[in-house]
């Protein structure tokens, strides 16, 4: 009887956790849907109507914005996927493969905005590339009037997104490769006289694709609704849909919240269409004739195409690295005029000034990140433990935690914000932490979930037979066994939280600011020097966190078996 009650209690806790995680998602969607259909009682609007969906097409240039969001999302995802596969197939089974993780970790760890800043420092008419070529080659003794970054068609936004998502796909693919005997398959392909390219496309990619499909959809949802990168890299006359939503949401008109909410629904619709398109393409590629067609046209020998693609992939990655190093130079340089390649003088003034003025912001960013990551991990562990105890195996329920990643951030956050104003919740810090947890949990779960579930059951039964209770088994057996995954997912949680822009911008409402938001502020105004310093910190902090984790991991697991 008692045990039954206890079980009921645990089920209740599980239910509670479900609410904690899914509640904000639910209210976010609700807070979006009601105003989108014209329902907002406290603003004197009690009727549902679809008039705002007609109104929104009267906004000047809105169709262009929609189109821009649509194709930037599509092309950046597909090209990032392409480049990640090209890089992988070219270095698979070589010694470089093992270094790849080290190269891409810092690229993965830094926020999107840092990548955008790096690109601007590099490619703008007064950027490093034109400085390197001027005036000896180009004849420019002042920056040319080129419309490159941002450009008219959103190409630089696509480039920025490719640079940021390629490492993400690389990581996901490398994790997927370990789940099937890729090495053997690769060797079989090679022994059949296939080139790397054809082996990869015909034998490995189909296996790999199944496993990274979810990641692809997450990337589609993200890239077609990105905000921070679009502020810097998208054209401004007009900008992408996500930026337009932001602008309209913040404008003074009384109708703005209704129009912004309907536009946010349009944003969701865009993502739905994109993913449907992807499904259709999948269907086509899955046809037998298409497969045969590919086999026919694919060159067996190592082709020039493969070489060019690989070189451009490597160029892309080095582009991001050079851009970021250049940003750090800006942080230390003084009086750096075109076309000088290096600053005339160096100084630490910008650095010390920045530290003095932003030490609180840096502290609060780290504080939020630590709390968010910690809570996320605790929630995941408790969730998994209770599930394990109740032998509760519903994986569909778990996939619900990925919902926040599929809803465009702006749409979701407008809903949450409306809801918060409605219930008059004024603790911005707590609200922000709660919302950030939603974005951090899925990533932590991907790492931690399989690790915790994968602990060898024999150890647990031995522990149980030695009279250890569940709690002792968790802390004395399971956790020590998964220390490495635990630490990694803790670190990833911190890094994700640090890089979030839109949630902080919306939910923090200016009261709680983090380094990422501050960097964007600097990027659209102030001096390059300060921006350089801010960017430097945005790179150094995640890398430091990664290093600390690697080091602790080594220390902690030295004695384990």
């Amino acid at each position: 009887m008692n045990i039954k009650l206890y079980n009921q209690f645990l089920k209740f806790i599980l239910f509670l956790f479900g609410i904690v995680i899914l509640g904000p998602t639910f209210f976010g969607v609700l807070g979006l849907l009601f105003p989108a259909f014209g329902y907002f009682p406290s603003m004197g609007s009690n009727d549902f109507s679809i008039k705002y969906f007609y109104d929104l097409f009267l906004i000047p240039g809105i169709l262009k914005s929609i189109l821009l969001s649509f194709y930037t999302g599509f092309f950046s995802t597909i090209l990032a996927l392409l480049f990640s596969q090209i890089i992988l197939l070219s270095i698979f089974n070589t010694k470089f493969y093992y270094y790849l993780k080290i190269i891409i970790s810092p690229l993965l760890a830094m926020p999107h905005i840092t990548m955008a800043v790096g690109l601007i420092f590099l490619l703008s008419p007064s950027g490093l590339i034109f400085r390197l070529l001027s005036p000896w080659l180009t004849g420019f003794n002042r920056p040319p009037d080129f419309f490159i970054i941002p450009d008219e068609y959103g190409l630089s936004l696509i480039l920025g997104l490719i640079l940021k998502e390629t490492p993400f796909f690389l990581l996901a693919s490398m994790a997927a490769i370990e789940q099937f005997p890729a090495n053997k398959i690769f060797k079989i392909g090679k022994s059949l006289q296939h080139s790397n390219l054809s082996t990869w496309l015909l034998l490995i990619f189909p296996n790999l694709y199944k496993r990274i499909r979810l990641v692809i959809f997450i990337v589609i949802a993200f890239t077609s609704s990105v905000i921070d990168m679009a502020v810097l890299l998208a054209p401004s006359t007009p900008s992408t849909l996500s930026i337009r939503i932001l602008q309209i949401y913040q404008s003074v008109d009384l109708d703005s919240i209704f129009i912004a909410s309907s536009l946010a629904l349009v944003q969701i619709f865009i993502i739905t269409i994109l993913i449907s398109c992807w499904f259709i393409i999948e269907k086509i590629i899955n046809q037998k004739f298409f497969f045969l067609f590919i086999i026919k046209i694919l060159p067996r020998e190592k082709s020039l195409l493969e070489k060019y693609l690989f070189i451009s992939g490597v160029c892309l990655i080095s582009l991001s690295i050079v851009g970021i190093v250049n940003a750090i130079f800006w942080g230390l340089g003084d009086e750096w005029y075109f076309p000088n390649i290096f600053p005339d003088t160096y100084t630490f003034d910008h650095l010390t000034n920045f530290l003095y003025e932003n030490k609180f912001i840096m502290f609060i960013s780290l504080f939020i990140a630590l709390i968010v990551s910690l809570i996320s991990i605790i929630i995941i562990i408790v969730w998994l433990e209770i599930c394990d105890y109740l032998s509760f195996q519903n994986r569909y329920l778990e996939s619900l935690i990925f919902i926040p990643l599929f809803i465009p951030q702006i749409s979701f956050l407008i809903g949450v914000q409306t809801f918060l104003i409605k219930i008059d919740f004024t603790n911005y810090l707590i609200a922000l932490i709660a919302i950030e947890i939603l974005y951090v949990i899925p990533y932590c779960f991907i790492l931690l979930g399989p690790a915790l579930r994968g602990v060898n059951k024999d150890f647990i039964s031995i522990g149980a037979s030695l009279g250890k209770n569940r709690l002792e088994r968790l802390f004395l057996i399971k956790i020590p066994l998964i220390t490495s995954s635990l630490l990694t997912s803790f670190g990833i949680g911190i890094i994700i939280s640090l890089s979030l822009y839109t949630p902080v911008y919306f939910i923090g409402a200016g009261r709680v600011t983090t380094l990422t938001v501050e960097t964007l502020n600097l990027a659209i105004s102030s001096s390059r020097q300060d921006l350089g310093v801010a960017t430097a910190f945005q790179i150094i902090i995640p890398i430091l966190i990664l290093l600390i984790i690697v080091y602790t991991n080594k220390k902690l697991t030295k004695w384990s078996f």
Partner: protein
Amino acid sequence: MLNIVIKRYLFQMIFHFIIISLVFVFCSSTYALEKQSYVFQNEYWKKTIKKASGQTIYFHAWGGAKNINSYIKWASNEVMKKYNIEVIHVKIADTSNVVARILSEKTAEKNKNGAVDLVWINGENFSFMKKQDLLFKDNWIIKSPNTKNMDFKNNPGLLNDFGISTNGMEMPWGVSQLNFYYDSEYLKSPPRSALELRNYIINNKGRFTFPQPPDFVGTSFLKQILIELIKDKSVLQSPFIKKNHEYLLNPLWSWLDEVTPFLWQGGKNYPSNYSALTQLLADREIDIGMAFNIAHASNAISEGKLKKTVRSYIHENGTLANVHFLSIPYNSSKKDAAQVFINFLISPKAQLKKQNKDVWGDPSVLSVNKLKSEWKNKFINLPRGVATLNNEELQMKLEEPHPSWVKAIENQWIQKYGSSN
């Protein structure tokens, strides 16, 4: 006969006595009244300071310029030390966002504990807030002791914001005038009128731009051009009525039609605010920059952002001039602390520091003649900066149009040039 003379004399004496005594009584009573009101004000202020201690206020102010942010940081530290008030600067990109927030709070009937305690504001944002009853009224600005150093009588601009009476809802904080700057090493004589500027832009493709409206400076630039092109300037002082006034904007649109293809990046992309222009000029991507702060160029030079050869200028027929203000939203629950902070910001100490070109360079709103001699000397001895125009050069000032013109200009600009990539 003599009697009559004496009588007359006596009569006159009495009359004079009455007049003099009346005057004396009047004077003394007003003196007493003044003294009484001074005592009253003093009491009121003491109470305000007491209540303000320990409060935290959120100061929503445009945060796109580092020097201004640093200045606000300095002022916050000062009031922390002096009055135990914590000021948190909420850096915003556009003041209209703050107005939108307060408006949404009002519609949600959140009439207490509003998110905003203090806002840096002027122009159409003020007129909107005044119209929607979003401001703390109570004629509070007169109660701040430091207003005694302002000369409202001779500076009616301090009580009028874009022609709208402030009714004591806004405290003047600084004075600005639209000005342009250029590098004198490369550009010998900058264009000094809308027409000269048009020719300059067309002859120097890609070397001029302005911040993208609805940015404050960008829209102000459009207003400047409109004022220079319009024939009857007085009509700009009345509210914009679409059916009567829309055609008056046509000279501005035809000017822009001619110029836009020759702007920086073909007029397809614009910098987001005036600080971004500074960087573009430093890189020599553009030839001419603009700002509302008359010491902006000098300030940028002393910060090492611009070369020492940069100079400022204004148009022959003058440029837009206005005052920027501080005001308190109606639903702030920390109005005391906000008032104490504002009073500090208009103190001679804070205004002197603000006017210093190495700090911010924003001219003070105080009247130097009303100050005590020690402060007076300090103000007079402030260096002006190599790139700052002197008062004679800045004499030609243009009046701001009625705030309702702003929205009309912005909306049409966005329709014509901001969304037709």
